[in-house]
């Protein structure tokens, strides 16, 4: 034990003895453990299918098939969250810029791909294109173009407005909010208020038989997971194995020192902003194919990005992966395993997740103090 410190001259508020503090801490840990353990036990063993607390599937022991499907849904949703949030956390980690326009960039990327796909294939029927009309090229080309366009857009925003306000992080956040207001309003004007889908290519629009409990799983969700995994690996290799990545990692730790060593850090900032924004655009293409595009969707995706990086820790790629997984699993299991009359409350679990992590680790699971 360290030598006892002298009490400060003035102590405000509650004064507790060491035993009381220890008792409180143990109580907190026990409560937290129960809070984490109970949902697990509930999903695995307790969830009933009848009575007042009836859930749609029942416990995992009772219905392993739907449990596995929910698990897969959570993991694949996490993949999409990761694509969007990794761009957010890349920009934040290097430049301390909270890009509040990330959700609007997401939506814009989706709309660019949607319009390009319609331009390539045709308008389709009353409900837009169906997958049978779209081949692989007609999905991949719009995705690449949208990624590049949104990346360029982020780059322009950074060079025009953010570059000369470096270090003023609140002001930069306000600037990106202003950009998001304008962008969201212009998208409403040009693309309308009706929800629209980007069509998956026909190659993806099928089911995969897992030969486990007779699970037939959609290929599109597995494609999302594969893209997310690929992006995660590429980002990791980029950051750990290349010179640019090395400069970025050094810049995260100490920008001034890196630039004093003669590195052109402005170029690095520009590259990181292009890539980070581009990932929002790519996320928009995938999200637009998966869940549709509409005004207001940008707020949801900004929320997911924020929650993922608040949980995982700002600026940490691994944190973004773990955060995405936690958010994806929490939202999917809450929606499927709450008693049927209470499934509307599943949004609360996202809040509880944020609350629990912030209470234990204010900087997120993998975050370091700024």
């Amino acid at each position, binding site marked *: 034990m360290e030598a006892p410190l002298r009490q*400060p*001259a*003035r*102590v*405000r*508020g*509650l004064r507790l003895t060491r035993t009381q503090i220890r008792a409180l801490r143990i109580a907190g840990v026990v409560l937290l453990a129960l809070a984490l353990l109970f949902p697990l036990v509930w999903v695995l063993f307790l969830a009933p299918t009848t009575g007042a607390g009836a859930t749609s599937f029942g416990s995992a022991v009772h219905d392993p098939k739907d449990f596995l499907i929910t698990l897969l849904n959570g993991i694949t949703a996490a993949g999409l969250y990761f694509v969007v949030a990794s761009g957010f956390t890349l920009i934040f980690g290097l430049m*301390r810029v*909270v890009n*509040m326009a990330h959700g609007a960039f997401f939506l814009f990327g989706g709309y660019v791909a949607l319009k390009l796909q319609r331009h390539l294939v045709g308008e389709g029927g009353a409900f837009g294109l169906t997958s049978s009309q779209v081949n692989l090229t007609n999905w991949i080309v719009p995705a690449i173009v949208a990624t590049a366009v949104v990346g360029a857009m982020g780059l322009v925003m950074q060079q025009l*407005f953010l570059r*000369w*306000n*470096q*270090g*003023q*992080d*609140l*002001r930069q*956040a*306000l*600037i990106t*909010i*202003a*950009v*998001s*207001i*304008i962008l*969201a*309003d*212009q998208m409403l*004007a040009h693309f309308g208020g009706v929800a629209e889908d980007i069509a998956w290519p026909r190659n993806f629009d099928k089911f995969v038989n897992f030969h486990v409990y007779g699970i037939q799983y959609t290929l599109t969700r597995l494609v999302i997971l594969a893209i997310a995994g690929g992006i995660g690996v590429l980002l990791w290799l980029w950051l750990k194995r290349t010179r640019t990545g090395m400069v970025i990692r050094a810049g995260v730790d100490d*920008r*001034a020192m890196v*630039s004093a060593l003669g590195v052109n*850090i402005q170029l690095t900032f520009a590259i990181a902003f292009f890539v980070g924004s581009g990932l929002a655009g790519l996320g928009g293409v995938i999200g637009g194919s998966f869940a549709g595009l509409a005004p*207001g969707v*940008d*707020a*949801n995706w*900004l*929320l997911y990005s*924020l*929650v993922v*990086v*608040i949980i995982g820790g*700002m600026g940490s790629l691994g944190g973004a992966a773990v955060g995405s997984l936690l958010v994806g699993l929490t939202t999917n299991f809450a929606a499927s395993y709450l008693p049927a009359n209470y499934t*509307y*409350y*599943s*949004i*609360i679990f*996202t*809040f509880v997740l*944020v*609350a629990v992590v*912030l*209470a234990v680790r*204010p900087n997120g699971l993998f975050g370091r103090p*700024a």
Partner: protein
Amino acid sequence: MTRLVSADRVVGTVALVFAAIAPAVVNAYWVGALLTQMLFLGIVAASLIFLSAYGGMVSLAQVSIFGIAGFVLGNVTTNGNTKGLNLGWDPWLGVVLALAIAVGVGLLFGALASRSVGIYFLMITLTYAVIANLFFGQVTSVSGFGGISGIPTPHIVGSPDAHPNRLYYISLVTALVVYVVLRYVVRAPVGLTLQGLRDDPIRMSSLGYNVPLHRTVAFAFAALVAGIGGVLFAWWNAHIDPASIDLTATIDVLVIAVVGGLYRLEGAWVGALFFVIVNNYSQRIGFIGDRFHTLIGAIFLAIVLVSPGGLIGLWERFVNLFSGRRRGPLDRNPVELGHAEPSV
């Protein structure tokens, strides 16, 4: 600032006199639609300015707390064919419960965010805002997508359509009380402590002050103010739905506070007046039409880039130009917008 007659005081007095006689001077539409709206939006923005200017906490959760108070009021006071619980309580009892729940939520939100500062605080409060919006959109037992209609006012207020002046004067008096109390609080020991935490939390902590606790209490107090704004909104609009507290509404109040200047309480109502006038009249300008948010976003961008002190900051520069004083808004710098790093 010790002079009895300063430009600020002259303008303030003129504004007050005008506000007091407004129903006799301008038409009922201005009073009922614009000025009343300006007053309660100003109250919400004032709660944000209080937190940012004196606590260093730029909160985006004020609109969600405003909405929570409004939804609670709607749920417990309606008694008819609307969504929600329809408990049919007395409106004043509903106000008490609405404010109590707003403060309770403020304590919870504040406690969770109290160990974060700066943009972290901004991000955490933004998640509160979006989650509150989604909550009321999804939970049909308390609201659902369509929201709650026909929220009754107390007898003394009457229908805002039939008696716009009554709600106007009640809002005016409430806004004045809020302003005076906020001015008092920031000068009281607790307010001075808050400013100490804003400037140097580590030093305050080593002096024995409980930093997170003070931040939490300040946040809950601001939640009370925002809740009062929410009650006035619910009476004025007689309806509240999730769109009243969505991301757009959240950003609107941020725009009001920034346009007013994030560092003086008066700015809240200046910004709100500017906002409602632009909102109301920009549609008549042909090339803007429905693109109000593009316009307000561009104004917001210009203000943030050119004059971080907002309209109040411009006003102070103007006054200082004539009075010859060199004390500008940036000298105070209570909101840590930070200092530009040397270009590298």
